[in-house]
C-alpha cells in the first residue's frame, strides 16, 4: 500500500500547487503548464494502447485532430459552450478508432501499426476535401478566447483523468490481460483471453482522450486548420515522451512529458530545424539503450512498486 508520507502527501502538495498556480503566476507559466498537461494527456493516451498491449499506434494525432474539428464545429455551427464541445471530441475520435481498430486489431502482427501509419494523412485529406463543412485548407476560426484559466483546469483535469485511468487499468484484471497480450499474445489467447476484444477496448479508451484534448485545444488555439492539427510531429512527440519516461507504466508518460516539455522550451525551441532530427535520434537511443525508459532505469536503483 502506498504510504501516507511517501506518496499521498507529496502528490497532494503537487496537486494543490498546480491548482493555485494560475492565481499567482504570469500568463506565460499558465500557458506553458497547459502545454505540459496536454502532452501528459496525449503521451498517456498513447501509452494505453501501445505501452500496455505493444501494438504501436503511428497515427494517434488523428484522434486529436478529429476531436479538434468536432469541438470547433460544435462551437461555431451549433453554438455549444466550449466545455461540452471539447468533451464531445471523444465521440468521433472513439468512433474512428472503432472503424480502424475492429478490422486491424483482430489480426496479430504489423497490420495495425501500418494502418495507423496511413490514418493521419487520410483523415487530413478528408478534412481538406469536405470544404463546405470544415473550411478546407483555411480551417475554422473560433471566437477569440478571453480567459485561459478555465482551459488550464480543463486540460489539467483531462491529464489527471488519463493518469487515473491508466492507474485503474494497470491495477485491474483488464490491465493484466493487456500486459499479457504484450508479453505473449498466443499464450494469452491460450489462457482464454479474448485478445481482439481487449485490444479494441484499450484502443477505444486510448483514442477517446486525445479527442478531448484536441477539443479543448481548438478552443484554446482559436483557429484550427488541417496542417495545424494533424502534424506528424505530434505523434512523434507523444511516442518519444511516453518511451522516454517509461512505456507501460502509470507515471512514465507524466515524467517523459514534463521533462521533454521543459527541454523543448529551454533548448530546442532555439533550434527549430534540428528538433525533429533530435527526436528521431532520441527514439533510436531510447529503444536501444533504455527500452524501459527513465522509470526502468530508476527501478534498477530504487525499490518501486510494480504499479507506478
Amino acid at each position, binding site marked *: 500500500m502506498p504510504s501516507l508520507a511517501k506518496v499521498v502527501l507529496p502528490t497532494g502538495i503537487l496537486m494543490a500547487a498546480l491548482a493555485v498556480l494560475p492565481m499567482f503566476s504570469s500568463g506565460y507559466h499558465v500557458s506553458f503548464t497547459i502545454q505540459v498537461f496536454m502532452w501528459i494527456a496525449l503521451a498517456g493516451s498513447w501509452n494505453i494502447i*501501445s505501452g500496455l498491449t*505493444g*501494438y*504501436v499506434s*503511428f497515427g494517434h494525432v488523428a484522434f486529436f485532430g478529429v476531436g479538434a474539428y468536432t469541438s470547433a464545429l460544435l462551437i461555431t455551427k451549433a453554438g455549444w459552450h466550449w466545455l461540452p464541445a471539447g468533451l464531445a471530441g471523444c465521440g468521433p475520435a472513439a468512433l474512428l478508432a472503432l*472503424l*480502424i481498430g*475492429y*478490422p*486491424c486489431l*483482430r*489480426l496479430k*502482427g*504489423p*497490420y495495425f*501499426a*501500418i*494502418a495507423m*501509419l*496511413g*490514418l493521419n*494523412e*487520410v483523415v487530413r*485529406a*478528408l478534412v*481538406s*476535401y469536405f470544404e463546405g463543412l470544415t473550411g478546407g485548407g483555411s480551417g475554422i476560426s473560433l471566437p477569440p478566447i478571453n480567459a485561459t484559466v478555465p482551459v488550464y483546469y480543463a486540460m489539467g483535469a483531462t491529464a489527471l483523468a488519463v493518469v487515473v485511468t491508466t492507474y485503474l487499468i494497470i491495477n485491474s484484471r483488464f490491465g493484466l490481460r493487456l500486459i499479457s497480450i*504484450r508479453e505473449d499474445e498466443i499464450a494469452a489467447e491460450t489462457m482464454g483471453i479474448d485478445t481482439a476484444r481487449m485490444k479494441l477496448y484499450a484502443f477505444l479508451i486510448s483514442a477517446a482522450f486525445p479527442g478531448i484534448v484536441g477539443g479543448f485545444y481548438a478552443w484554446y488555439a482559436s483557429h484550427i486548420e488541417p496542417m495545424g492539427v494533424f502534424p*506528424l510531429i505530434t505523434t*512523434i512527440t507523444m*511516442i518519444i515522451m511516453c*518511451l522516454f519516461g517509461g512505456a507501460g507504466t502509470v507515471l512514465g508518460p507524466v515524467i517523459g512529458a514534463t521533462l521533454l516539455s521543459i527541454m523543448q522550451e529551454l533548448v530546442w525551441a532555439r533550434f527549430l*530545424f*534540428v528538433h*525533429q*532530427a533530435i*527526436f*528521431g*535520434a*532520441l*527514439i*533510436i537511443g531510447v*529503444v*536501444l539503450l533504455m*527500452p524501459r525508459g527513465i522509470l526502468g532505469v530508476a527501478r534498477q536503483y530504487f525499490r518501486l512498486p510494480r504499479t507506478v
Partner: protein
Amino acid sequence: MVHITGTMVLQVVVSGLLVGGLYALVALGLSLVFGVMRVINIAHGTFLMLGAYVTYWLFALAGLNPFLSILISVPVLFVVGALIQRLFVFRVVNAPELSSLLLTFGISILLANLAMLAWTSDYRSVEFLTGSFIVKNIAISKPRSIAFALALAITAIAFLFLHRTKIGKAIRATSQNREVAEVCGINVRRIDLITFGLGAALAGAGGSLVSVMFAVYPEMGQVYVFKSFLVIVLGGAGNYPGAFFGGLLLGVIEGLSSLFLTAQLTEVVSYVLLVALLLLRPQGLLGGRT
C-alpha cells in the same frame, strides 16, 4: 463534371500499370526484409528518398542520365542499409515487434530530417526525357514507360538472384524457417545483413525511378511504406509473384480513383481498400499462403 470516355479510362489504366510496376519493385524490398527478419522497416520509404536524391544530385551536378544512376544508387543504398542493419537493427531482430517498429520509425525520422537539413525541403525535379509516345489516342509517358521497363527488369533480376544463387536460396530458406536455416549451416546474421542491404537497394532503385516521375523532397518516402504494405497485402503475405500483381493493381486502382473521384481522395481510396481487405480477406486478394 467532365464526361468520362473509354479512352480516358484506358489512359489511366495504362499510366496506373506503369506506376504499379514501380510499386511492386519497392514492395519487394519491404517484403524481403519482413520475410527474413520479421521486421517491418518503417524507414523503407526513407531509403527510397535517399535513392531519389542520389539520382537528383548526379543529374543536377554531373548531368548523369537518371536511369544510369541506378547503377550508383543501388550500391550506395545497399551500403547504407547494411550499415544501419549492422549498427541498429540487428539488436531488435528477435525483440518484440514494438522495438523494431519504433526503432525503424526513429531511423526514418532522423534520416528524413537530416536530408531536410542538408538539402532543404524544396521540391526538386529531374527534368529528363519529357514527352510521350502516342499509341491509338493514348499517351504513354516516355519516362514512365522506361521506368516501368527498368522496374520490371530489376524485379526479374532480384527473382533470379533469390532463386538461382546460393545466397538467394539462403535468404529464402531463412525466411521460411530461421532456426532450421541456422541448423543447416546458414549464417543468419550475415543473411540479415545482406537482406537488409538488398531491401534498401531495391528501395533506392525505386527512388531513382520515382525521381523521373514525381518531385524529390525529404518527406517523399513517407507514403511508400504504406503503399508497399498495401501491395503486399493485396498479393497475399509471403507471396512474391502475388506482390507483383498487387503492385500493378494498386497503380490501376489509384489511377481510376483519381479519374472518377479526385486526386485528393486517391489516398483515402487506397486506405479504405486496405482496411476493407483486412476485414474481409486478410490472406490477400490473390490468395497467398497464410
